[in-house]
């Protein structure tokens, strides 16, 4: 190490301090505003949301109370058989279950596109169309398809031999299933861009080595593709599992929550949409949200712990 005089050392230290200061000033200038907005629109908003869960507004003042939670408790465990919240939770679980079924379906679809199934380049374009056109476009079309005079009802009447046309979106017996049908229609190729991107980075040699060993498509998919793209798959699975209480369908455009189709997230949306902000519905929705967020926490931690246990394959 060269010998520096005291003055030189002082100068070097000053230079270092200047560089550090410049670095922090630069960093502050490029991320300071975003972090401030994060505090305002995420931290403070969520903190307020917790406070709101313990508040109720009267005509003159705001009181602190557990009423929102006792009301929620009554809705779940009270005398009434079928409250709106029980219905919303049941439907949310149904949509969550459907999401779990569609998760591997999206992966399998992506796998066959990766394997260059006939028409794969067309599917790559067409399967993105559900994402690029507004949900209002698809729901308007879907409503016509499942209308009384539409082809879906005619087909169902032909299959069941019934003379009575079903009102699919206007009858509680069918409405939720019909909304789920829309979710399936739109979700067949879910996440295919992310899966496709991950699969395209798998070295061709690995796939060819497997083929030379005579493995079939199923073993290739399960024993080669899944381990190699697991970081992507794990992340998507984590997001899927942690969305247990936010799972929903296109309720707003298809039924507006009527005919027993509401979900937890639609219930919360409804508490704000066209409701004056002084309403206590805001506070009740905040309490419902808080309870379900707390219930999600163990699922998040367990899923992350589980995914961390699985080692990533390096290639």
């Amino acid at each position, binding site marked *: 190490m060269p010998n520096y005089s005291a003055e030189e050392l002082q100068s070097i230290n000053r230079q270092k301090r200047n560089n550090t200061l410049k670095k922090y000033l*630069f960093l502050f200038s490029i991320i300071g505003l975003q972090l401030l907005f*994060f505090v305002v629109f995420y931290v403070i908003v969520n903190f307020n949301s917790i406070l709101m869960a313990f508040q109720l507004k009267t005509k003159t003042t705001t009181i602190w109370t557990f009423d929102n939670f006792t009301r929620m408790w009554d809705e779940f465990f009270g005398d009434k058989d079928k409250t709106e919240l029980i219905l919303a939770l049941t439907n949310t679980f149904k949509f969550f279950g459907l999401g779990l079924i569609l998760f591997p379906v999206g992966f399998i679809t992506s796998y066959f596109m990766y394997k260059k199934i006939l028409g794969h380049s067309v599917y790559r374009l067409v399967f993105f169309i559900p994402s690029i056109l507004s949900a209002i476009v698809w729901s308007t079309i879907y409503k016509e398809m499942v209308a009384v005079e539409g082809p879906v009802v005619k087909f169902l009447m032909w299959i069941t031999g019934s003379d009575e046309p079903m009102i699919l979106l206007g009858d509680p017996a069918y409405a939720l299933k019909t909304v789920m049908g829309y979710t399936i229609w739109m979700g067949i190729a879910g996440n295919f861009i992310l899966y496709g991107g991950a699969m395209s980075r798998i070295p061709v040699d690995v796939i060819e080595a497997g083929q030379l060993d005579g493995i079939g498509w199923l073993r290739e998919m399960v024993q080669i593709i899944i381990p190699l793209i697991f970081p992507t798959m794990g992340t998507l699975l984590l997001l899927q599992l942690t969305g247990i209480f936010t799972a929903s369908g296109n309720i707003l455009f298809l039924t507006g929550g009527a005919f027993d189709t509401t979900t937890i997230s639609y219930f919360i949306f409804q508490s704000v949409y066209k409701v004056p902000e002084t309403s206590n519905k805001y506070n009740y929705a905040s309490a419902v949200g808080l309870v379900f967020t707390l219930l999600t926490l163990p699922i998040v931690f367990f899923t992350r712990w589980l995914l961390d246990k699985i080692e990533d394959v390096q290639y």
Partner: protein
Amino acid sequence: MERVIFKTPKHNRIKKRAKSEIIVFAVEFVILATFAASYILSFLWAVMAGFKTHNDLIMNPFGLPETWHPENYIDAFSLLEVNGVNMIGMIGNSIWWVIGGSILGVLGPTLVAYAVTKFNFIGRMFLINLNIVTMTLPIIGSFPATYRMYSALGFINSPLILIASFGAFGSTNLYMCAFFRGVSPTYAEAAKIDGANEYTILFKIMMPLSKGILIALLTMAAVGRWNDSNTMLVYLPKMPNLATGIYLFSTEMTYRARMDILMAATVLSAIPPLILYSFGHKSILTNVSLGGIKG
């Protein structure tokens, strides 16, 4: 020295597909082709429905129009009106919402991703983990508190709401972190030797290098915002964009009488995202990738 590449004939390298495999591929082909056809035919049906009269559409929803009415696509501009805003006004609202929101929504997390991947500073790991936490922990029910916050800040029915788009985290941050980690530090080092400051490195070297992924993310953000109706319904009810306008039009009584106009407007609203996607889809398919979020 010239490199010699030995290639084995394809039929030797890859085995022929077994019968069972051919059956599986055939079944999958039928499923995928059916879904692809359903998307294309549904959209073509909507285009055709826009050429019909309202009565023709009700009486004969799936047949060809009795008489073709291309004027529906022009009339939609004046007849589609919600809360005193016509279709031109809705398109205007869509444009500022898309341009402003997409740029701010992509730029904010991109700058944070650049900072945490290219600099060592106090709190760096905290920011990286905070992004993962905010992404994986769904906060349910903050909608009412957000409304009250926006209301207090004067964001309701105001373009000021765009400010909230300038975020720090989310999937864009994750995508950009993965990208910046792959960019060699030699670019920045060479520029520093040439006397470039940090802003020059960021805006004249790193941003041009990120062009592909930024185009992909901007396209996805723009398409998402063009189709965003929930935000406008709740926070900007007096400034409906096209997606919101069509929804509100469909719920009003006029819808019963002018479904032809609704369908024409619906098809017209699909044109901008289709154009955007046709330009940006290659960037999306080649640049967007998501890795693991362990930590």
